C-alpha cells in the first residue's frame, strides 16, 4: 500500500515537473527568449564556471593529498620497492607538471575566450606545423626517459633470482594462502594436483621426491628473513588468485596449471616498520588481488619480516609435512599443522 502511494506520488511529481517546464518555456517564448541556445549572459557565467571549477579542482586535489598522505602505504620495505618508489616520484613530478599546466590552460581558455561583445570573433587558425612538431617531439623524449627508467627496474623485478635466495612456495586456494618452505636443501619438492588430500596433503606433494621430504608447510602467516632474497614460486589449486605484496611493491598471479615467480629482498623488519609507522600493531600483508569467489575479500595472509636469527628460530618450531605423515604411518601422533 505504501509502495503504491510512493509510486503515485512519484508520478504526480513528474507531471508537476513537466507542467512547470511547460510554463517556464511558454513564458520565456512570450518574452522572446530562447531557452535552448546560449546567450551572452550564459557565455559569461559558464565561462566563469570553468575558471572556478579549475581552482576548485586543484584545491580538492591538494586537500586530498594533505588529508590522506599519511594513510598511504609507508616507505617500501624491499630492495626493488625502493627503486619503485623513486620511479613513482619521478613519474609523479612529470605528471603533476603536465596536469596542472594543461588543465589550467583548458579551463582558462574556456573562461578567457568566451564569446562576448569584447570577443565577438574567433581567430582563424587551422594549423601550425611547428607547434605540432613540438608537441609530438617533446612528449616522445620525455616518454623515452620514462620507458628506459621503467624497463631497468622491470629487468630487476623479473630477472634471475640470486642463487642463494630462499626458495618458498605460496599456494593459493579459495580462500587462503599456504606457505611451503624448502627446508635444509633449499629446494622445493614436486607436487601433483592429483595427490591432493585436504586432510593429509593439502598441496599435493609427491612423497617419493626426496627434495620434498624436508619441506615445511605453514598456514596462517608467512615469515621471511630481512636482507636475504626470497624467491617465491606461486601456484593455485582451483581458480586464479592474485598474490599482492603492497609493501614490497610486487605482485603476480597464481595460476592453476603453472608456476609463476617473484623475488625480492625484504629490507625492513616488521619491528622497524612499526617504529616508522608509529603503530605498534602494524603488519605487512599479502592479499589476493584477482577476484576468486565470494570470499575473495577475506583472502589475505599476515606477513612477518624477521631478523635472520628470529626467522630461523621461528622456522625451527615447524615440522616438515612428511614428518607428520611418517609418524602417522608408524603409529605416532600427527603434528597439527597451523
Amino acid at each position: 500500500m505504501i509502495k503504491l502511494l510512493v509510486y503515485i506520488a512519484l508520478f504526480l511529481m513528474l507531471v508537476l515537473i513537466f507542467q512547470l517546464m511547460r510554463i517556464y518555456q511558454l513564458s520565456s517564448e512570450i518574452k522572446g527568449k530562447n531557452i535552448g541556445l546560449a546567450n551572452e549572459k550564459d557565455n559569461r557565467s559558464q565561462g566563469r564556471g570553468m575558471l572556478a571549477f579549475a581552482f576548485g579542482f586543484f584545491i580538492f586535489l591538494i586537500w586530498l593529498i594533505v588529508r590522506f598522505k599519511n594513510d598511504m602505504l609507508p616507505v617500501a620495505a624491499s630492495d626493488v620497492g625502493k627503486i619503485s618508489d623513486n620511479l613513482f616520484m619521478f613519474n609523479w613530478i612529470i605528471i603533476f607538471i603536465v596536469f596542472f599546466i594543461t588543465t589550467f590552460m583548458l579551463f582558462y581558455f574556456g573562461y578567457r575566450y568566451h564569446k562576448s561583445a569584447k570577443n565577438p570573433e574567433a581567430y582563424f587558425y587551422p594549423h601550425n606545423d611547428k607547434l605540432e612538431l613540438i608537441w609530438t617531439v617533446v612528449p616522445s623524449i620525455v616518454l623515452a626517459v620514462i620507458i628506459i627508467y621503467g624497463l631497468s627496474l622491470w629487468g630487476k623485478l623479473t630477472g634471475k633470482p640470486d642463487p642463494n635466495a630462499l626458495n618458498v612456495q605460496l599456494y593459493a586456494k579459495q580462500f587462503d594462502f599456504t606457505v611451503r618452505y624448502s627446508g635444509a636443501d633449499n629446494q622445493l619438492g614436486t607436487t601433483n594436483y592429483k595427490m591432493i588430500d585436504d586432510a593429509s596433503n593439502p598441496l599435493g606433494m609427491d612423497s617419493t621426491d626426496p627434495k620434498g621430504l624436508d619441506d615445511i608447510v605453514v598456514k596462517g602467516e608467512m615469515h621471511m628473513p630481512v636482507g636475504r632474497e626470497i624467491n617465491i614460486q606461486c601456484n593455485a589449486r582451483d581458480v586464479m588468485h592474485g598474490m599482492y605484496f603492497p609493501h614490497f611493491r610486487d605482485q603476480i598471479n597464481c595460476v592453476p596449471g603453472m608456476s609463476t615467480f617473484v623475488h625480492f629482498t625484504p629490507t625492513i623488519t616488521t619491528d622497524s616498520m612499526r617504529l616508522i609507522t608509529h603503530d605498534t600493531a602494524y603488519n605487512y600483508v599479502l592479499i589476493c588481488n584477482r577476484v576468486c569467489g565470494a570470499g575473495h575479500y577475506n583472502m589475505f595472509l599476515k606477513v612477518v619480516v624477521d631478523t635472520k636469527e628470529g626467522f630461523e628460530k621461528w622456522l625451527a618450531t615447524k615440522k616438515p609435512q612428511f614428518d607428520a605423515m611418517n609418524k602417522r604411518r608408524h603409529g605416532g601422533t600427527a603434528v597439527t599443522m597451523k
Partner: protein
Amino acid sequence: METHAHEATHTAEHEHHHHHEHPSQSFVEKYVFSMDHKIISKQFLFTAMFMAFAAAIMSVLFRLQLAFPGEKSSTMHFFLGDRWAKGGILDPNMYLGLVTIHGTIMVFFLLTGGLSGTFANLLIPLQVGARDMASPMMNMLSYWFFFISSLVMFISLFVETGPASAGWTIYPPLSALPQAIPGSGLGMTLWLSSIALFVVSSLLGGLNYIVTVINLRTIGMKMTRLPLTIWALLITAILGVLSFPVLFGAAILLIFDRSFGTSFYLSDIFIGGQALSQTGGSPILFEHLFWFLGHPEVYIVIMPAFGIMSEIIAVCARKPIFGYRAMIGSMLSIAFLAFIVWGHHMFVSGMNPFLGSVFVFTTLLIAIPSAVKAFNYITTLWKGSIVFNPQLLFVVGAVSTFISGGLTGIILADSALDVAVHGTYFVVAHFHIVMGLSAVLAMFGGVYHWFPKMFGRIMNKKLAYWHFWLTFICAYGVFLPMHFLGLAGVPRRYYTNDAYAPWAKLQDINIIVTCFAIVGVLAQILFFINFFYSMVKGTKSDENPWKANTLEWTTPIVPGHGNWEGDLPVVHRWAYDYSKPGKKTDFVQQTVPMEAGELDEGEHS
C-alpha cells in the same frame, strides 16, 4: 544501394509522399522494424539509456556497501529483495554480480553499442551525404541483435544462481567453474550468449559503417573533407570488425570448456574435493584472447568520443579544429597501436617478462598521439569565440578527464610500477576517468548537440547546465579520491576492506566517493526529464541551430527517410571553415562553393 540511387532522382514532393503516406509504411515498419538509420540510431540510444540507468543503480548499490559495510539498507532490500539482500545486507556473491554486470553494461552496452550505435547510425549517412546506410537491412538486424543481447544480459540478473560474477573480464577458471562461484552457472551462460549476440550486432553494424563511409560519400566529399566525427566512427568500426571476432572465439572456447569438457583454459584443477580431468590448458590464453579485443575495445569506446569532441569544440568555439590532418593521423596511429598493446593488462599474469617490456614500449607510444590530440583541443579553444552551449561544457569536461586519466595511464603502462598498483582502486580510478568519463561526457555532449536533428527540438539549456555541473563535479568527486585508495594498496572487487587494519583509516574516502556517486546518479534525473520533455514539448529548432558547417544541417529540420529532399548535396570544402577571414558569416557550410583563389584548408599537407 541501387534503390537509393534511384530514389535520388525522384522529386522532393514525390519522396515526401512515398515516405509519409505510402500505405505499406505501417507503424511497425516505421518505428519498430525500421530500416531508417535515424530511427535505428534512436533505438540504440533508448536501449543504451535504459541499460545505463540499470547499471548506474547497480553502482549506487555497491557503493552503499563499500561506504557502509554491514549496515542494513532499505534501498538495498528494495532493489535486491530477500534473495540477495536479506535484512538489507548485501550478499557477497551479489556484490560481485553487481560489479560484473555494471562493468559489462557500461563498457559494451552503453559505450560500445550505445555510443557507436547512436552516433554512427545518425551521423554517417547525414554527414557523408548519403540517403541511408549501405545496407539498411543489416543495420536493422544490427539493432535487433543488440536488443536481444541487452535483453539476455538484463534477464541474467534475475536467475536463481545470480548473474555472472567473475568480473567483466570473466577470467577462467573462475568463470568456467560453477563450483567456484554460483554466478558461473546459468548466469555466465547467459552472459556468454549475450556477448556472442552482441558481437554479431557489432559486426553487422561495423561492416555497414565502413562500407557506407567508403562508398556512399556524396560528390566532392573527399576523405580529407570528412568531418572528424566520421573519421572517428570509421576507425572505430574498423577496430571493432578486426577485434570483436577474437572475443567471439574466446567466448566459444570458454563455452566448450564449460560444457564439453575441453581444456583450452583449464589445467590441473582441484576443486570441491575432487581433481578435474582437464590438463594442458592455460588461463593466460584466455587473457591474451580477451585483451586482444579488450584493449582495442577501450579505443572503440573513446574514438567516437574523440570525433564528437572535435566537432563540438570547433562548432562552439567558432574556430576550425586545430591540426585537422594531425587529428586524423593521431587517430590512425592510436588505432594501429591499439592492436599491439593488449599485454599491458597482463603484466602480472605470468607471461614472459620480455614480452612485458615490448608492451611497455608500445603502450607508452600511445601517449604521443594522445598528447597531440589533447594539445590540439586546447589550441582550438585558444582565441576562439566560445559559445557556451551545454554540449561544449560536456566536451571540455571530456577533454579534462581525458588528460587527467591519460596521465595516470603513464604509471600503469610502466610494468615495473604497474605491479605495485595493479588491480587496486588506482586502476579503477584511471580507467573510469580516461575511458568512462571521457566517453560518457562526450556522449552527453553529442546528445545535446544532435538532439535537434533527432527530434527537431532543442533541449532546455538551464537544466542542461545544472546537469553538467552536477555530473562533472560528482564525476571527479567519485574518481579522484579513488586514486588514494589504490596508493594505499586497497584492491578492487573487495566486498569490504576490513581484511587489513590500516585500511580502516581510509573509510572516509569511501564515504566521500559514495556520497558523490549518489548525487551524481540522481543528477542524471535532470537529463532524463530534460530529454523526454524536450522530445515532445521542447523549443522548436530551426534547420541549423548551432550554425554548423556539416551536411546534416542542410537537411530539413527533421529529415524523412532519404534525408534530403531533391538531389543529394554536393560538397565543396572541408567541414571547419569557421570564422574564415573575408566571409560574411562566421561559418561556411560544406555545400558552399569555393570562391576563386580560396584555399581549402582540409587539403593542406
